[in-house]
């Protein structure tokens, strides 16, 4: 068994891992290794050939591969080492990593700091329980995207899409451009789960109907899928009898959510926040296992890669500061989701960092609201707030708290809540 040592080992060479690795290197860490199971770095971005990436960070509309290439280039140039086609099997709490590939066989990698950047996977039919038969022709949107964009094959020609997640919307357009007929997108919620720009550019521009408060209640066909039954649902998501409609199709695409992929993290004993499905992290993006950091979709599912990159820079810096002995004092405040807020990341913030740098809080709201204030409170005291014209569950809200803007003492709890403008809290 080959044994190697690195200062920082990043697991996953998607946008999160690339940003974390190159930032750690830029901070002065000597040996940084990026490990990825795929043939080439870039992660899922490589199959996202549509544009719209980097609008916030670069003020450009890049395609997924273009966005990835910027960071691949930067990582190579800065001296990050890549280990591709390599699968990490286990991470031990003492930061020893076991990984395999076909060239070297089993590898033991010792790391001073580890950054988890494994991304997420798609929720599938089993997770959303669609009754009926089990034919071929049912794909998660991302799998279909891989077949179409990377392998050059069509999963089908006559498509129904369940869920209005962004990949589903993107694939509705992609299938249409390939000459396939997309019957419609059916969303169980009374609002869309995708970015507004995707609703417009992918559905409206291609005359694909979006049916809110609808779901697929049955799959038909024994060998290849032949049709689906769709039904309208009430406010408790129960299908309304009498609203059933059978739609012939040869393909059902599922775009019903993403799940952070934390099997390695769990096995290592890292504490997972059940609301986000990812590790509990500090503002250095350090998990509950000292020396192990996490960033990107493995922590919580993002809708913009720009935010993944920003968050991953923090993880790269955090890992570098640990290696270089520059970690902030361990005085922490905790964050908490208050009314109207589903979750807040990070879970803990170093008091010292509040004074020395801008602190970004990422949050998701529980339901669509207009004209609200996102407010940071400690006890009854409002510390900071920003106005938001529209907030939607599908669009992550980020709040930047400038340095020294708030002061807090270790152990204090900062609650983030929504307040309707005009309402007294």
């Amino acid at each position: 068994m080959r044994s190697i040592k690195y200062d920082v080992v990043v697991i996953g060479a998607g946008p999160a891992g690339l940003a974390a690795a190159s930032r750690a290197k830029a901070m002065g860490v000597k040996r940084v290794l990026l490990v990825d199971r795929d043939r080439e770095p870039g992660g899922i971005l490589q199959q996202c050939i549509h544009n719209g990436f980097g609008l916030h960070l670069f003020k450009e509309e890049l395609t997924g591969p273009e966005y990835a290439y910027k960071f691949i280039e930067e990582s190579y140039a800065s001296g990050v080492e890549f280990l591709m086609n390599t699968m990490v099997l286990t991470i031990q709490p003492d930061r020893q990593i076991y990984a395999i590939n076909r060239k070297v066989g089993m590898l033991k990698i010792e790391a001073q700091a580890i950054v988890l950047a494994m991304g997420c996977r798609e929720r599938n039919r089993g997770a959303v329980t669609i009754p009926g038969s089990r034919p071929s022709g049912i794909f998660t949107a991302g799998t279909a995207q891989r077949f179409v964009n990377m392998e050059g094959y069509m999963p089908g020609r006559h498509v129904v899409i369940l869920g209005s997640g962004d990949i589903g919307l993107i694939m509705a357009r992609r299938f249409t451009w390939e000459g396939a007929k997309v019957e419609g997108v059916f969303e169980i919620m009374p609002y869309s789960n995708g970015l507004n720009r995707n609703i417009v550019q992918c559905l409206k521009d291609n005359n694909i109907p979006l049916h809110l408060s609808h779901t697929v209640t049955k799959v038909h066909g024994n060998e290849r899928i032949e049709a689906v039954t769709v039904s309208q649902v009430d406010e408790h998501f129960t299908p309304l009898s009498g609203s059933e409609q059978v739609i012939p199709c040869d393909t059902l695409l599922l775009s019903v959510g993403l799940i952070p992929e934390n099997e390695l993290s769990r096995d290592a004993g890292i504490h997972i926040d059940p609301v986000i499905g990812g590790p509990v992290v500090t503002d250095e993006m350090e998990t509950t296992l000292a020396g192990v950091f996490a960033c990107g979709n493995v922590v919580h599912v993002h809708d913009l890669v720009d935010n993944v990159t920003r968050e991953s820079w923090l993880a790269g810096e955090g890992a570098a500061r640990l290696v270089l002995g520059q970690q902030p004092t361990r005085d922490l405040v905790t964050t908490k989701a208050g009314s109207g807020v589903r979750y807040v990341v990070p879970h803990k913030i170093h008091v010292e960092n509040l004074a020395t740098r801008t602190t970004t809080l990422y949050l998701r709201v529980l339901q669509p609201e207009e004209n609200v204030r996102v407010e940071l409170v400690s006890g009854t005291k409002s510390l900071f707030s920003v106005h938001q014209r529209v907030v939607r569950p599908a669009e992550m809200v980020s709040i930047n708290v400038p340095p020294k803007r708030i002061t807090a003492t270790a152990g204090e709890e900062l609650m983030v809540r929504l307040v309707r403008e005009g309402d007294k809290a």
Partner: protein
Amino acid sequence: MERLKADVVVIGAGVTGTAVARELARYQLKVFLVEKHPDVACGCTKANTAIVHAGYDATPGTWKAKLNVRGAAVYPQVCRELEVEFKPTGSLVVALAEDQVPHLYELLNRGYVNGVPDLKVIGRDELLAKEPYVNPKAVAALWAPTAGLVNPWGLAIAQAENAAENGVEVLLGAPVVGIDVTDGLVTAVQTPDVIIETRYVVNAGGRYSDEIARMVGQDDFRIVPRKGEYYVFDKRFGYMANCPLFPVPTAISKGILVTPSVDKNLLIGPNAQDQEDKEDLDTTAEGLQEVLSEALTMMPDLPVKDAITNFAGLRAVARPSNDFVLGPAPGVPNFINAAGIQSPGLTSAPAVAEVVRDYLQMAGLELKGKKKFNPFRKGIVTFRDKSHEEQARLIQEDPRYGQIVCRCETVTEAEIVQALNRPIPCTTIDGVKRRTRAGMGRCQAGFCTPRVVEIMARELGLSWDEITKKGGASRLLLGQTKCSAAVKGAGKDA
């Protein structure tokens, strides 16, 4: 039309038919195993609770009662010989209220009559010590130490492979369309491609065993499929049950249970719904709800949100007997039924095979042992369950072990290549899944499907869009993209 000659034709390659074929492979006989699906284990065998029952449940004196106990007794050896996963977990029938306790003693007594060894009723404390996640309202349980868990399709595949390695001819994709009977004796079995002249026929046709029997004029039983629906949960929760946890049974079913699988998934089900349609394997919203709510009674902390899939299976229930239909068809002594094999049919399979062998002998088939019979079958060498040192050695011997294809179940390319090159041809994605577990994990084949298709296309010499999920019209991909087709076209022109 090709004509073949056999001593025995076994119809149906489920767990019963393959057990019979393997049993007959011990003797100097020409045996054909014919199956209409493109693979073995495609009927009732692929969708059931995967439990080796102890045998206290069946009415004393029935075939079910006799063969269950015998089957359970030989399972450990059969699974050892064939390298099939078997876990001797024991099982529990849990009384959730005082008024259910008398039922436990009824089952205990019935088990005693059936010859089930070492049954005992245990109290609440012992139960909760064994099974900490069971409903704390439970008051007592029947403990059956001889029960266990098995991989049912794994067993059928292993039996078929072992049979094939010992000379049995396996014909897949060969539905029986007719059986020739002359002067009260079967003379030949017809499939669309071949006619097999034969001295004996074994009917292990599962859901369709009544229709096969009717081909020789037997019309005294019929199969009414009884649907059962299930949920499978993420492996991460496999620890919540150490053995099958049955509720106190009802007249038609052993009830909806919570059980681990040999692969550490948590499984709940089945409900029981009689139906006429033999192909209706649809899950239903109502059925799944029934399964879930009853299982929650047994285990209130069930990880409802971490279900990874659900499915339905059919039990081949024979009417009117409700028992296994074993033995010659009336008036056709060389046609032996192994029909109506429903629960505890999986457990009974090895014993059913012995009974069928004896009936064949009684009907005049001479059984001369084969010196060269090898009862041992080597399975696919799996990667996931090995130590890091052993895994390192595997990759050294075959670098394809260094390539993970299915990350949820840690399945390597080497295992998939092996699955595609074994004694029983494997030609479908579901076949690869059942042999390797690729695609059976929490992402349900989201990530591995393109890689599996790629390997299958390469190994089977097919194009990607010819690969099917389960044969027939179940192609996965319906052609190429515009760009890809254009590029391919350009290549051809050049």
